[in-house]
C-alpha cells in the first residue's frame, strides 16, 4: 500500500496511469451531469411549496458539498506535502485551488438565486452563508499566495500551511446551522441519515452529487497532468512523450 503510494507520487507514473483514466472518467462525468440535469430539470416533480425553484437545489447542493470536501482534499494534499515532501502533492494543492474556488462560487451564486424566490432575499449574513463566503476567500487566498510568491523557495509550504489552517472553517460551515439560529436550513442531502425528501427527488440529487465529484476529479487530474508537463519539461520522458505527438 505504502509502496503503491510512493510509486504514484512519482510524476511520471502518475502521468502514465492518469492518462489511461482520463477519457473514461471525463466521459462518465459529462454523461452523468447531462443525464442528472435533464432528470432534475424536466422530470422531477415540483416541490409543494417552492414549486419549480426546487430544481436549483440539484445544482446548488452538490456544489456546496463539493466546495467543502474539495477543501478537505486540498488540505489532505497539503499535509502530505508538508510531511513527506512529495512534490506531486504540491502540484495537487496548486491545481485544486481554482477548481474549489469556482465550485464555491457556484454554490454561493445558486444559493442566492434560490434564496430570492424562497426566502425573499439574495443574501443574509447568517452563519452558514458567511462561513461559506470565508471558504471562498480561503481558496482565493491559497491562489493569491501562490501567485504572489511565484517561484520563490517555500511557496509550496506557505500555501500548504494556509490550506491546513483553513480547515478550522469546515466544522463551522457544517455545524453552523445547528450551533446558531440561521436562515439557512439544515442539510438536505446525507448518505447516513434518512432522506428528507421522497426517492424520486432524492435519486437525481444523488446522481448529480456523484457526477459533480467525477467531473471534479477528472478536471483536477487533467490540471495536474498539465502542471506535471510544465514542471518536468526538461526531463527526458517529457521530451520523448512530446516527440511522439
Amino acid at each position: 500500500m505504502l509502496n503503491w503510494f510512493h510509486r504514484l507520487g512519482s510524476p511520471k507514473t502518475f502521468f502514465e496511469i492518469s492518462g489511461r483514466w482520463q477519457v473514461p472518467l471525463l466521459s462518465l462525468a459529462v454523461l452523468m451531469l447531462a443525464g442528472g440535469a435533464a432528470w432534475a430539470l424536466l422530470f422531477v416533480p415540483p416541490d409543494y411549496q417552492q414549486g419549480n425553484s426546487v430544481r436549483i437545489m440539484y445544482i446548488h447542493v452538490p456544489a456546496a458539498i463539493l466546495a467543502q470536501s474539495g477543501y478537505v482534499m486540498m488540505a489532505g494534499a497539503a499535509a502530505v506535502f508538508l510531511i513527506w515532501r512529495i512534490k506531486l502533492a504540491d502540484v495537487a494543492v496548486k491545481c485544486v485551488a481554482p477548481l474549489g474556488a469556482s465550485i464555491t462560487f457556484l454554490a454561493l451564486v445558486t444559493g442566492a438565486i434560490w434564496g430570492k424566490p424562497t426566502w425573499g432575499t439574495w443574501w443574509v449574513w447568517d452563519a452558514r452563508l458567511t462561513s461559506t463566503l470565508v471558504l471562498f476567500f480561503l481558496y482565493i487566498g491559497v491562489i493569491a499566495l501562490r501567485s504572489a510568491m511565484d517561484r520563490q523557495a517555500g511557496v509550496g509550504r506557505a500555501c500548504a500551511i494556509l490550506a491546513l489552517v483553513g480547515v478550522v472553517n469546515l466544522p463551522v460551515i457544517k455545524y453552523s446551522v445547528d450551533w446558531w439560529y440561521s436562515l439557512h436550513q439544515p442539510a438536505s442531502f446525507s448518505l447516513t441519515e434518512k432522506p428528507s425528501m421522497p426517492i424520486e427527488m432524492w435519486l437525481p440529487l444523488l446522481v448529480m452529487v456523484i457526477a459533480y465529484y467525477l467531473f471534479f476529479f477528472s478536471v483536477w487530474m487533467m490540471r495536474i497532468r498539465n502542471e506535471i508537463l510544465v514542471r518536468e519539461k526538461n526531463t527526458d520522458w517529457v521530451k520523448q512523450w512530446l516527440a511522439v505527438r
Partner: protein
Amino acid sequence: MKFGRMKSHRRNRLLLIVFIVCAAGGATTFALFALNENINLFYSPDQIAQGEAPVGKTIRAGGMVQDDSVTRTGEGLGVSFVISDMKSAQVTVEFEGILPDMFREGQGVIALGQLNSEGVFVAEEVLAKHDENYMPPEVAAALEEAHESGVDTGQKAGYE
C-alpha cells in the same frame, strides 16, 4: 503507514501540523464562543418573551407563523401575525409591505425590525425560512390528510 515506523523528522512535521491545526481550531473556538450571541441571526420567541431581546434596537426575530393568526390591518399592506416556538412563547409581529411568496401560516419566518415597549415586534422586512424537507404536491396533500386524521408526520423546522 505505521506511526512507529515513521522517520523521526516526518513525525515531527506531522506533530507540528497537528499542533498548528489544533491551535488555530482552539483560537477559532474561543472567538466563536465570545461572539456567540452576535452570530445568532435572530432571537427566538422564547428569548423575546424572556426579555433577552433589546427593546428599540433593530434586531431579527424568528419563529413559526401561528395558524389563523394572520390578520390584515387597515386598508393598505398592513398585516399582523403571531410567531411562536411551537411551545408556549408567542410574539406579535406587525408589518407593512409585501410578504415573500413562501410566507404562510405554519411556516417559519425571520423578521427584521424593532421590539416596541408593548412587546410587539414592528418589522421592516420579513423573510421566509424554509426547512430541509422537500416533497411533491401530491405527497404533501396526502400527508396533510394523514395529519388531520391524527398521524404524526415528524415534521419540524428547527425552532425547538
